[in-house]
């Protein structure tokens, strides 16, 4: 029996339908969701839907001692945690005017580049998998694991290193670490041909990635896109070179650029960047032994550490782009405010939504992976 006041709702005749992908979906990077409106295979509009992993990192940090936040920050980007630790430490050091020993700066750059390699390897696999090629994802994860082995040896932790601390790093590098790092770099270089054959010159992949998800330079700048996604549009902007931090000025490296701004360009920029990181690490292996001295300048007792009143904005180049922290201290033992400018927060929402329009449904996942979006950076 229908109620008396029941009226049939008549909808206009339409072929449109809605599709919800995520938050736990192989085509989505991390805990993220996407609401698509489709007409057949074609995307009419997309709506990014964040919030599935919200832990309130920024707010949490206001309630914890300065040093306790070291254990939170790496969680904001799981595949590439080192820049988070480094840039948080940089802001605190900047406010406190702490001098970081030179050796610690070299060790930090070593970690940053190794972390970039580990992150890019992860992305290769993810991107390839969205096109139906699963072998690169196995390779990428296996090769990334070797980098994590090195991190484990260096920091005691595989994924969350919690190794950088305001004032430097927590321990010096273990004996023979640089030799093992060097072996790993040799190995990666032998793998270059394999990856090229399997992925980057593989026509199955190239034809699938080309001209998909095109972002032109003007749009990229307007939306605040940075990192490999910006460089894939032809603009060679890199914080490491344009606003050098730590000891990047002393290092010799190129900024890889592509011009097409499509999915293929983005992954090719990452490919080149990975081997630029290898180049940087080779220089570090050569120089680090000659940089003597302590790896940490002392900080006060962390349980009673009032960081001077002040604020600082520091940025580094993470694997996703320009990562920055804006830290404010009111002179207390906890931060007054920490704002994280997650690199992905720029390209994981508007850019992704806009670029999906007009694409076919099977390319949406590819676009997201090609942008290397890291949802916790949106949801911090």
């Amino acid at each position, binding site marked *: 029996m229908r109620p008396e006041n029941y009226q049939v709702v008549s909808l206009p005749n339409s072929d449109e339908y809605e599709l919800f992908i995520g938050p736990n979906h192989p085509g989505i990077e991390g805990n993220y969701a996407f609401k698509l409106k489709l007409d057949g295979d074609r995307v009419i509009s997309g709506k990014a839907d964040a919030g599935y992993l919200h832990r309130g990192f920024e707010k949490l940090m206001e309630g914890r001692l300065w040093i306790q936040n070291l254990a939170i920050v790496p969680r904001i980007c799981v595949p590439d945690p080192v820049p988070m630790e480094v840039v948080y430490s940089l802001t605190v050091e900047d406010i406190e005017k702490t001098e970081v020993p030179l050796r610690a700066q070299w060790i930090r750059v070593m970690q940053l580049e190794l972390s970039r390699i580990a992150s890019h390897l992860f992305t290769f696999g993810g991107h390839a998998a969205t096109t139906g090629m699963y072998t690169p994802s196995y390779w990428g994860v296996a090769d990334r694991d070797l980098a994590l082995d090195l991190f484990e040896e260096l920091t*005691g932790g595989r994924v969350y290193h919690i190794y950088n601390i305001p004032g430097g790093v927590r321990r010096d590098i273990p004996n023979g670490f640089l030799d093992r790092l060097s072996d790993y770099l040799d190995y990666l270089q032998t793998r270059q041909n394999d990856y090229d054959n399997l992925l980057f010159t593989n026509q199955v992949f190239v034809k699938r990635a080309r001209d998909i998800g095109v972002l032109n330079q003007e749009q990229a700048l307007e939306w605040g896109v940075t990192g490999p996604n910006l460089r894939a549009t032809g603009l060679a902007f890199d914080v490491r070179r344009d606003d050098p931090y730590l000891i990047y000025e002393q290092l010799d490296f190129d900024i890889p650029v592509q011009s097409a701004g499509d999915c293929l360009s983005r992954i090719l920029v990452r490919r080149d960047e990975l081997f630029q990181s290898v180049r940087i690490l080779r220089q570090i292996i050569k120089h680090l032994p000659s940089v003597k001295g302590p790896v940490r300048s002392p900080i006060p007792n962390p*349980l009673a550490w009032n960081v001077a009143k002040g604020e600082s904005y520091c940025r580094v180049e993470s694997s996703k782009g320009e990562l920055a922290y804006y830290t404010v201290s009111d002179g207390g033992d906890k931060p007054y405010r920490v704002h994280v400018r997650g690199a992905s927060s720029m390209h994981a929402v508007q850019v992704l939504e806009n670029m999906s329009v007009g694409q076919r449904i099977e390319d949406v996942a590819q676009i997201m992976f090609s942008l290397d979006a890291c949802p916790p950076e949106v949801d911090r």
Partner: protein
Amino acid sequence: MKKIKYDDLGSVLNPLKNLQFFARKPVTEPLGPRPAAEIYRGFHLNDMEKCIGCSTCQKICDNAAITMVKIPHLKEDPVNGIRNLRPAIDYGRCCWCALCVDICPVGAIELSREYVHTCNGDEVDSYFVLPQEKGMHGTFEEKGWTKTETNDLLDRKRLPMGEMTPDERGDNFDEIVNGFTPEQAILEASRCVQCGMCHDSCPTHMHAPEYIRAIWKGNVEEAVEWMYESNPFSHVCGRVCTHRCESACSLNQAGLPQGSEPIAIRWLKRYAMDAVPHERIKEIAARKKTDQKTGQKIAVIGAGPAGLTAAFDLVKQGHEVQVYEALAKAGGMTRYGIPYYRLPDDMLDRDVDVIVSMGVSIQYNIRIGKDISMEQLHKDYDAVILAIGLQSGRSTRIPGSEHEDVHSAVELLRRIGSVRDDMNTAEDLDFKVPHSAVVIGGGNVAMDIGRSLARYQKQQYNQVNMTITAIDALENFPADDVEIKESLEEGITIIPSRGPQEVVLENGKIKALKTWRVESVFDADGRFAPQYDESDEQLYDVEMVVEAIGQMAEMELLGEQLTEQLEWQRGRLKVAEDGATSVDWLWSAGDCVNGPDVVHAVADGHRVAESINKAFSVQR
């Protein structure tokens, strides 16, 4: 780097390249357990013997994963800074950041290389673990992340305290220690981990963690308020306390390669007291005073730390208190025993003034037993507190010790204390400063009299000829290490392990002190029975001998009848834990019960006041 040709379609034979992988080693890890890295951050280990239960790990833990659990069979020793609490880890919360390892003051907690733990549904509590030396599953799998000098997070070095050089201080009684500046005090206070070991070990349980925190926050008034919760002699204790707190401090625990110094708790107390104006201190101290009057009257005999602390507490609770002091000024041994260079009189005067301002009335120059009898006090007051201290010195009773130039240290210090002011000069003294003297004894009193006389010698004769000798070996001297160090700096000769045998007299004057070398002080049963090597005899040519081997109470004031009435134990007044004697209107406190120590006397004063208050409330 070569540009890749991604446009190139390549050869049709390209897929055949894959055949090469048959000849390659697989990239996957071999099956089977994989050893973790050398500094891996796995499950916790805790050295149960080394751990002192200070709970610093709990404080640094950013996930609240650590709970301190009481382990009843372990040692609980507050005096040495050991609690029987041990950290238990909730692995549902732990993030293996190892900050607990880096901050542990003693280096007891460490991480292992063990990283696998599984359980089925009904064993979920197996994730809540009390770490042991053997690791998570009782199978020790090597240490992982441990404490090194690099990752230690604590500030181990104490801020150096400015003080006068031996040359500057040798001929005057100016206070030696400068005290902290505000910046120094905040830095020193910032080293504290707030474990509270100091509070537990302090006889009067001062709220040291709270006032250190307040000093660190720059709020000295709050610090002073915390001090007056438990110690109305904070000026005195900020200068001359035996600082049990510092011995118990977590940062004082030995066993770390880099060494570790305790927080300068005593100097911080002194800093806060000096930083707050005197009038403000009076206001702060009076905050907890009740407006109600109980109508009960209490007499206190002796205006020393114990008597005045009891008076302070009782007045706060609304009782009427009258203090009788035999000497001309208040303070007892703190005034007439401790030299000016360690405790200037005006600091003591301030403490006394705060107590008087609370409403305590003190009558000076009244000797109970002579001017007023105990019976009279009993008649006039509801309760009487006996806090007379230890006023007479013990004698060695060696031949010649009855000579008039053989003095007891306390008596001599009292004579010095009665005349001293800022400008102590030998002319004021009622005895002649000896050209040479020897002090018998190795305690702080011996150092006090030795150093005082040495100052007068330097003033009058421009040279120090002072010897301190004791039966103990130097490492067993009861005196503080710093006292021994400073005595030596001031030109005093210290001769340990000598037993005095005779004061050699010649023509009615002292010629020398004869000593033998000590072979052993105690017998096999641990009783005091010194053995001497008589062949090793030394004579010290001196004009004066001072005996500083211990003190006794003068109990004559009680009178015959009361002495009869009271219970005694081996010649000492029998006193219960709360200070009550066997007579229901008489309590006893301070040095005359517990032996010489300021902070113990203060603690005793509180105890007695509480006991009296309780007795009164039962009556009411």
